[in-house]
């Protein structure tokens, strides 16, 4: 399969196919970037490229009149997603360690539960939480989103981490102990460095899933106190009712997209391995 002796014609064909795929993947992204650079008056020009590129939309959401809508949402998204990721990865680490390392009867139950939680329709969780959160005062607060985010971040963390942990040669820990290391030293010096890349990858995937959430964000928040960016975007309205918020939405969309795309591109190999191993091998 890896014989790379293609004829010139085949090479050209592959380049064409390759370019088509790249275009398919990039056109919608390029379009939203283009929109974000258009002047208000050019928004209905219907041209793909901005005729007269400007940064006014970015100024509008970062320091202008829309900044008091966008900036708190950005802060909420970063804070809530980071905390939800941290809690999920720590809890998943214990669980994955147990699954990979120890033999205990509940193993299958935990993995099956994680799977069941992963396929759970989010909206079925939202309905009762909406009412309960209102009663106990968690509605429109950070914990009010962090807790339900566990249903998104925890299952995938357990699956990807246990896939990673299974590949760790645990005998090395014993070997180190035989050589005179205490069990804590052996764990810290041998296992932690081996596990770190997997933990890191899992954290990125979990963060990315929390960052992507929309259903919880739109249902369990009502003000800038906790509303994350995706929900804020959906509720963006123009500065006046006659102004289309298209440009501002596009600029905000580009800003929330850049960090995730950069992360994914830098760590693409690891993320692909984490996602596929987690899903196929567990």
């Amino acid at each position, binding site marked *: 399969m890896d014989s790379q002796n293609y004829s010139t014609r085949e090479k050209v064909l592959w380049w064409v196919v390759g370019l088509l795929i790249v275009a398919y993947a990039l056109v919608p992204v390029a379009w939203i970037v283009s929109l974000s650079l258009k002047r208000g008056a050019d928004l209905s020009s219907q041209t793909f490229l901005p005729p007269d590129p400007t940064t006014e939309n970015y100024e509008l959401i970062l320091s202008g009149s829309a900044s008091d809508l966008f900036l708190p949402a950005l802060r909420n998204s970063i804070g809530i997603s980071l905390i939800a990721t941290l809690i999920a990865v720590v*809890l998943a680490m*214990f669980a994955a360690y147990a699954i990979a390392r120890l033999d205990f009867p509940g193993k299958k139950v935990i993995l099956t539960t994680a*799977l069941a*939680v992963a*396929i759970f329709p989010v909206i*079925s969780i939202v*309905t009762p939480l909406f009412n*309960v959160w209102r009663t106990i005062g968690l509605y429109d607060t950070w914990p009010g989103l962090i*807790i339900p985010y*566990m249903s998104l971040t925890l299952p995938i963390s357990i699956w990807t981490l246990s896939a990673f942990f299974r590949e760790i040669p645990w005998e090395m820990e014993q070997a180190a102990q035989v050589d005179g290391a205490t069990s804590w030293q052996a764990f810290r010096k041998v296992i932690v460095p081996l596990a770190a890349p997997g933990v890191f990858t899992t954290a990125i995937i979990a963060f990315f899933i929390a960052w992507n959430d929309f259903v919880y964000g739109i249902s369990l928040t009502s003000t800038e106190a906790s509303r994350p960016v995706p929900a804020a975007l959906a509720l963006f309205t123009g500065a006046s009712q006659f102004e289309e918020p298209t440009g501002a939405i596009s600029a905000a969309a580009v800003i929330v997209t850049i960090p995730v795309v950069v992360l994914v591109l830098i760590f693409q190999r690891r993320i692909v391995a984490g996602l596929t191993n987690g899903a196929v091998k567990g």
Partner: protein
Amino acid sequence: MLAGPAFVVMLAVTAYPILQATYDSLFAYRLTDPESRRFVGLNNYAVILTDPVWWNAFGVTVLITVVTVLVELVLGFALALVMMKALRTIRPVLRTAILIPYAIITVVSAFAWFFAFDITSGFVNPTFGLEGTDWFASFPTAVSVIMMSEIWKTTPFISLLILSGLAQVPEDLQEAAKVDGATWWQRMWKVTIPNMKAAIMVALLFRTLDAFRIFDNVFIMTGGAAGTETLSFGAYRQTISRLEIGLGSAYSVLLFLSVVAIALGFIKIFKVDLSQARGEK
């Protein structure tokens, strides 16, 4: 013991809400009028299941799920084959490009597609000579754009799973079939696909259940107008917009049961043993 906390948290954030929803679904309960909350048994379910709105949403959800998952499976398979076979020089570029839609958050992707087809600002109409077409005004076009954005966004996921499945097909089997004179199609159907059944099934199951919960794109593009309301959107509208806790809860429970039925159906019909798919006994 180590796995305990994770297990408890998972149960707390899912089992508890669904039990609460089941309980709430037995009451006529409107948040704006809490005084008149009263027990009505299964009446909410009867109301929903005799309402054409529910069945319409059900049909739309099934349509979106079936079409997107089938298209994604074919497209994802093709992309995986290309990534596997392409010139070594362009392979990393393809992998990177394909990951981009996956990295875009759903809401942003929904906006990109919505603005592209928008009647005043979109580039699609002038590019394809369709001036004046309002894509979001009627059901067939609106649901098509929703499905396109969903396919664009999630094909990478299916493609990556299939790629990792392809990598697990033993090379010597391929070679043996080649020597025996099997054509490309024969090798595909007789050797490659049977050997990666587990990967395909996992991809299918996950995507089906995921597509069945479709919400973000619908919310952004049509808000359920033009007959595009899906089950998730219906549940949202009942509870969050109309504050009908009782009806909304019944909606949620029905949606939950549908998802469970799909999952069980998959496991029964295709005999997917997930623990086996993960290489365990």
